[in-house]
C-alpha cells in the first residue's frame, strides 16, 4: 500500500437530528493538498458535514475517513491531523492571546512556534490583550491561529471570512494559499462564491444533505444555464444548480 489516502473521503454519509435529515447519502473525496470548497444554501448540511469530519458528530450511516482514519472512532489520532476553525466558537473573556495560543499548543505533539504564528496572523502586538478586548477581525485571526497551532495536515475553515472587512478577507485568502503551498489540505465552508471561485481547486455544492454538483469552479459555471448576454459567475451557477433557476 504505497497509495496515499485522500485527505477526506466521505461515502454515503447519513446524519439526522431527531426527525430532521441533515445529511442524506453524501459522497465526496478531497485529495491531499487541495483547497476544497463546500457551498450551499443555509441548512444544506455543510457544517454537519465538516463536524463529522472533525469527529464532533457520529454519522448515522455511511463512512467518513480523514487520511484513512475514522475521525469519530479514532478521535485521538484524527484530531492531531485536523485543525478546526468552528463557526461561532469563542474563548473566555479574560484569557489573553498568549495564554490561549500557548494552551492550545500544549495539546499537540509537534506544535508550531507560537510567536511566529502570532506574527504571521498580525497578533504579536495583541499578545497580552484579553479576548474580550479584541476586535471581531482579531478574534477571527486568533481562532485561525488556534486551528493552525497543532500543524494540522487538514484545516477546516467554517465561514472563514464571514464578518471580515475586504482587506482582512484578502489577507485570509493569502493565508489559505500559503497553507496549500506548505502542503496542507484546506476545507473551506463558505457562502461566498467569489471566495470559492478565487481560492478553491474544486468545490462541492450541497443541497438538502446531498451533493448537487462537484467540480472545478469554471466547470460548474459552464454547466449552469445562464441567459445569453450575461457573464456567468459561480454565484449564478450555484443558484442554477441548487434551485434549477437561472
Amino acid at each position, binding site marked *: 500500500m504505497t497509495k496515499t489516502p485522500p485527505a477526506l473521503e466521505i461515502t454515503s454519509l447519513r446524519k439526522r437530528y431527531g426527525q430532521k435529515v441533515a445529511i442524506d447519502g453524501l459522497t465526496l473525496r478531497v485529495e491531499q493538498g487541495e483547497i476544497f470548497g463546500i457551498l450551499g444554501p443555509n441548512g444544506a448540511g455543510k457544517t454537519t458535514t465538516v463536524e463529522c469530519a*472533525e*469527529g*464532533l458528530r457520529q454519522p448515522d450511516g455511511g463512512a467518513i475517513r480523514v487520511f484513512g482514519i475514522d475521525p469519530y472512532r479514532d*478521535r*485521538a*489520532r484524527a*484530531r*492531531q*491531523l*485536523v485543525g*478546526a476553525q*468552528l463557526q*461561532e*466558537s*469563542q*474563548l*473566555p473573556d*479574560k*484569557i489573553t492571546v498568549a*495564554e490561549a495560543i*500557548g*494552551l*492550545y499548543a*500544549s*495539546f*499537540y*505533539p*509537534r506544535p*508550531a512556534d507560537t510567536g*511566529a*504564528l502570532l506574527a*504571521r496572523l498580525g497578533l504579536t502586538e495583541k499578545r497580552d490583550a484579553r479576548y474580550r478586548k479584541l476586535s471581531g477581525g482579531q478574534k477571527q485571526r486568533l481562532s485561525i491561529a*488556534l486551528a*493552525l497551532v*497543532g*500543524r*494540522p*495536515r487538514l484545516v477546516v475553515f467554517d465561514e472563514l471570512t464571514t464578518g471580515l472587512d475586504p482587506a482582512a478577507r484578502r489577507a485570509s485568502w493569502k493565508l489559505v494559499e500559503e*497553507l496549500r503551498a*506548505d*502542503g*496542507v489540505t484546506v476545507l473551506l465552508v463558505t457562502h461566498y462564491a467569489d471566495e470559492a471561485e478565487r481560492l478553491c481547486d474544486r468545490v462541492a455544492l450541497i443541497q438538502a444533505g446531498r451533493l448537487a454538483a462537484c467540480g472545478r469552479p469554471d466547470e460548474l459555471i459552464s454547466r449552469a444555464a445562464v441567459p445569453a448576454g450575461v457573464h456567468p459567475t459561480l454565484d449564478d451557477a450555484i443558484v442554477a444548480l441548487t434551485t434549477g433557476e437561472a
Partner: protein
Amino acid sequence: MTAVAETPVSQPRARQRSAFRNLVTVEARLMIREVVPLLWGAAFPMVLLSVIGEFSNGPEKSLGGFSLVASYVPVLIAFTCSTFALQGLPAVLTGYRERGILRRLNATPVGAGRLLGAQLTVNVSVALVATLGILVVGAAGFGVPLPRQPAGFAVALILTAAAMVGLGLLIASLARNPRVAGAVGTMLFLTLMFFAGLWGPQATMPAGLRRASDDTPLGAAVAALQHSMAGQWPSASGLALLAGYAVAFGLLAWRLFRWE
C-alpha cells in the same frame, strides 16, 4: 507551519498531563481575574466568622453546648463549598458551552472532558483552602478547637464537596445558559443554606425544621462536620445520605450533561 508528512505519534501521557496542568493554570488565573467568586466564596465566610466571633460568649446551652462561633464554623464551611459548586461552577460551564468553548476543545486531541476536570480541580482546591482558612480563623482568632476527629471530618468534608459538586454539575446540565444557571444556583444555595443553619444554627431550629434539615444535603453536612469537630465520628446515616446525594446528583448530571 509546514505540515510534516509523518505518521502521528501515539498519545504520550506526559503531553496529556502537561495539557491538563496548563488548563488548570489558565482556569485558576481566569477565576482570580473574576475577583468576585474569591471574595464571595472564600474571603466573605472568613470575614463573617470574624464578625460572629466578636459576638460569641463561650458555650451556650441553647446551642447544644457550643459557642456561637463554633456552631458557625461548619455552616460557613458548607457556605464556601456550595458557593463554588452551585454558583461558580455551573455559570462557568454553561458559559463555556454557550460560547462553543467545549465544542472547540472537543475538536482538539485533549477534549473538553479535561477542561471540566480542570474546572473541578480549581473549584475544589479553592474551597478546600477556604475551609482551612475558616478553621484557622476560628482556632487562632476565637479558640474554636480544630477538628478532634480529623478522619471523620475529612470524610464529611469530601462527601459534602462531592454532593455539592454533583448538584452543581446537574445545574450545568439542565441550565441552558449562565443566566439561568446563576439564578438556579443562587436559589438552591439560599434554600440549602437556610437548612444548613446560616440564619440560625441547627440547635435553635424547631424540632420539625431540624428533622427536615437533617435530610437536606447541607443540613446533613453541617451535622456531620459539627460532630467530627467535637470529636465524634459523624453518624453513619448522615454520611450515607451525603454519599447518596453525591451519587444521585452525579449520575443524573453524567446522563444529562451536554457538551453543546
